[in-house]
């Protein structure tokens, strides 16, 4: 069993390498090409428009993203939507919400799934558009996007009563370090 877990871990790591951020620039019909994360930008936590949840605390969010909470208060199953490993947004979320590295996050889910502590595993999408479409299609989905990638098809959730454009909002993608 441990061997299988290790194999999965290796595969996840390999996906991390192959899923570097250029894949995130996949264009989608009707939307402008994604601009590279040249500057720091806030990350919006998004849910389906039919989801009645408007506000989440950072702690609740952490529980959700770590798979500790399986259902919304409405009874809908929670589906976590993540971008592929290596994406700055994912890295930022892991660091700022989960307070984990990529490998720690992978290990957490592998372990949790084996032990049954984790109820849902995250869905991985290659592009912000894919994330947005997924959240639009699945009523219980929750994901994250740069604010500039958000449109009216999804709903932004307040975090600790803050919207991404408000002061004190906790999540953002840092600007890439100059080479």
């Amino acid at each position, binding site marked *: 069993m441990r061997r299988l877990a290790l194999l999965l871990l290796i595969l996840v790591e390999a996906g991390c390498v192959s899923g570097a951020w250029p894949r995130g620039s996949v264009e989608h019909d009707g939307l402008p090409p994604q601009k590279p994360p040249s500057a720091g930008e806030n990350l919006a936590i998004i849910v389906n428009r039919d989801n009645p949840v408007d506000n989440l605390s950072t702690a609740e969010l952490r529980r959700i993203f770590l798979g500790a909470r399986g259902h919304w208060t409405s009874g809908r199953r929670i589906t976590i939507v993540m971008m592929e490993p290596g994406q700055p947004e994912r890295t930022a979320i892991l660091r700022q919400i989960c307070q984990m590295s990529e490998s720690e996050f992978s290990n957490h889910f592998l372990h949790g799934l084996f032990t049954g502590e984790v109820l849902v595993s995250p869905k991985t999408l*290659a592009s912000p558009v894919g994330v947005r479409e997924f959240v639009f299609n699945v009523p219980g989905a929750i994901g994250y996007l740069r604010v500039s990638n958000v449109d009216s098809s999804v709903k932004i959730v307040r975090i600790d009563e803050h919207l991404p454009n408000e002061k004190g909002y906790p999540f953002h993608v840092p600007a890439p370090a100059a080479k």
Partner: protein
Amino acid sequence: MYRPRQLNSMNKQSKFLAGKVGRHRPGAVEGSGSFSRYSSALLLFLVFCVVIIVGIVVILDVRSTGVEAQKMYAGSVLGLHRIGDLQYSAQETRRSTFYALSTNDSNLQVKYADQSREADHLVIEGVSEYLREAKSPVEMEVGKRLQNDWSAYLKVRDEVLASILEGSTKEAVDLDLKDGVTLFDRVREDLEAIERLYDEQASQRLANVAASSRRAMIRLVGVLGIALVFAIASVWAIQRSRMQSAIQLARLQMEFVASVSHELRTPLTVISSAADNIADGLVEGKEEIKNYGSAIRSQSHQMTELVNEILLFAATKDRKNAYILRPLKVSDLVDSTLVRTSELVKSAGFTVDVQVDAELPNVVGDMSALSQCLQNLLINAVKYSGRSRWIGIRAFVSDSEVHKGKKVCIAVQDRGIGIDSSELPHIFEPFYRSAAVTAEQIHGTGLGLSLSKTIAEAMGGDLSVVSELEVGSVFTLHLQITEEHKLPVASAASGPGATVEK
């Protein structure tokens, strides 16, 4: 060349000679000929109109049928396209959902979900368009039903898609089998119902086109039949008119021959009897022979004048005659005519009342011909005066638009039997004699008035008549006034003048 000297002597018998004229030539019955021409033209015009109407009706029918056929084609093709698009989009919506079911890749699942939504939008748009253009209640009902069923299916589809994307494949399949299949079957039935409606509409339009085509055919046959009837009627009427003209001409010729024969027989009988008596030695003494000679000469003159009249008419109608047109004094013309008819008038016991306005302008004409013309009118007045023994002659200037400006008029009036209004249009036709005149055995050939009118028209004038039965008649000769500065006044006997061929 017209030779007046040959007609100068008018004797007692000349009253029967006035207008008793010569030979017939084809087409001489101008009145009936012109009537025939007018009726032919009218009938041909009617045929032309009918043909035009037929053409218009045929064009309209062909156009109408064409429009109907185009409508049918457009309706059917559009309907087939629409129903085909709807069916395809509905299938595509469901197919894309199944594609999403067939993979675990969330990116592909999202892509298929997106495709499914695009397809369902097309269905929604198609149904809305169908409802916008629906006219009958049945179409509206089917369209609304499809709209509702499609909405119901989409709710299930959304749930299925959500389950697929969540990774709950079994749940998605169960949901689709439970509700999706049923609802999609309903949608399919609705689409089939719409297709049936399109089929019915196409059949209806096809029937309309067929009916329109049938109507057009019947109408075409009908109007062609009418045109044919009109054409046949025209030909028949023209032929009938010509035949009647020919019959009338033949009848008039027979009457003319009989009349002339009668007129010739009387002097011939006198001459023959006189010759017999002389030959048989029954005439004795110089005085008696002188009387016989005088009678023979008188009858010979009468025959000569008759023959001359006939030749004159023939020459006039053959346009071989030529008139010498000169300025003439109206008083000279009237006086000349009175002198030539004085013996006839006197012997018949008539009073002639002559009124010639003072200072009348000169007229243009041939003295002999115009005198002959007036003489005919006077002789007719004597012949048809009945018990009245009065004739009026009046010369005056008239200015009427009917006769194109100022003219000198010489009217010859009698208080005789008059002419019936139905006869008036025909009295100037050659050979024409009214039934009443024939019945009263008033001799004549029916050429006098025709000859007079021809002469008047040859002088640039006209001859008109006003008459009332049992009251009398007025024949008026309208003559052109001389333009003095162009035509110097000449004596009636000689001098150069313009010549008009007639």
